[in-house]
């Protein structure tokens, strides 16, 4: 497979990825409304906190997997400098 078709495959795959929607973690509004963050208040959100941490870890692992896969693609000259580079 040529480099060009690799890039096309990558672009097609990335384009197909649905937009990432940043959501406010569910425990944030609950904890934010608490006047004082006692151990008891935080403990009550234990499941939500851990669920959110697990999701973050999974997303990080998935992102990392894509990055590692992209390392195998040879560098391709760009027509112009990407914004923010």
């Amino acid at each position, binding site marked *: 497979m040529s480099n060009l078709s690799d890039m096309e495959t990558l672009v097609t795959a990335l384009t197909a990825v649905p937009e990432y929607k940043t959501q406010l973690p569910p425990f944030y509004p609950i904890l934010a409304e608490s006047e004082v963050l006692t151990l008891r208040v*935080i*403990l009550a959100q234990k499941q939500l906190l851990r669920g959110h941490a697990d999701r973050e870890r999974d997303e990080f692992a998935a992102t990392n997997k894509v990055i590692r896969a992209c390392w195998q693609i040879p560098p391709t000259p760009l027509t112009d400098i990407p914004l923010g580079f």
Partner: protein
Amino acid sequence: MLANTPHPINRHPIRLLDLAPVLQPSPSLAQEVVSSNLPPLDTLLIAARLGELYETIFPQHPEWLEAIVDWKQEEDIAKAVGRFLNQVAKLFPIEDECWAADIEFIEWRLYSIPVCPMGFDIWHHGWDEIFEPAPYLLHIEWSRDEKENPDERNEFQQLYPNHPVPWHLEPTRLVGALREICAERSRRLTPPEPLHGLPDLIEMLMGCTDNLWLDVGELSLMEGGGYPQWDPVEVEMLAEEWKNAKPILDRVLALLNWQNETAEERDRKVTAVHEILLEAYRRQEPSYLPQLKMEFAQETTCAAAHHQE
């Protein structure tokens, strides 16, 4: 950098490789998160774990869950974890100091019980760093293996020329006889003499007390990494074991700290231990005297042959 670059920039609509708008939360969401003024997720997880431990280990103290901590300050988090460990330290010995040096280190304390076992690390420390009669007993056990280690010939005799013991005298085999002798002596003497800790010391040195606080040293545990996990049953078991270990440890420490100021005192202590070991050996091995004479004759012959070589 972007604002000051002298090079022309091709500004184009947001495209595939522009990750910033994808990875950053929307401005409204970011504002919401910042305005909530909450600590970071890592810290909240530590707080939840700490609350969980209070709830399971100290269910009789629900008021401790009302503690208020500044969860954004690592120092305050370390102090909060330290307060929990202080409560546990009332049940059994643990490393209850908690520094704010590393949040991961603080977190580790909430998943493994940082116990401080009291056993000897005889393979980590020099034996001369331990008070007598521990080195004397260790050399009896390990420094007389002339057949396997010819270079270490007579090491025990060199170190303790005035306190020889029969070749077959093994302190661990004399524990029962020593306890009998100590029990007999304690019926005559008040208060009990420090030598009563000798059978316990022998068992501790050999790691065979069957008490986990006394059979494992701190360095061995660190090396092995077998720290117990926080669990109410585990904590209860450790507390119960510690209750059993404490009087044994007190007896052992009384012996180690007894007659320890000067070389003469230490020599007197080894002499007392030597005598009671021989007494126990005589009691356990009725054929002691003929055997001792035979061993002495053999050792003299071997030493002479070695000298001629």
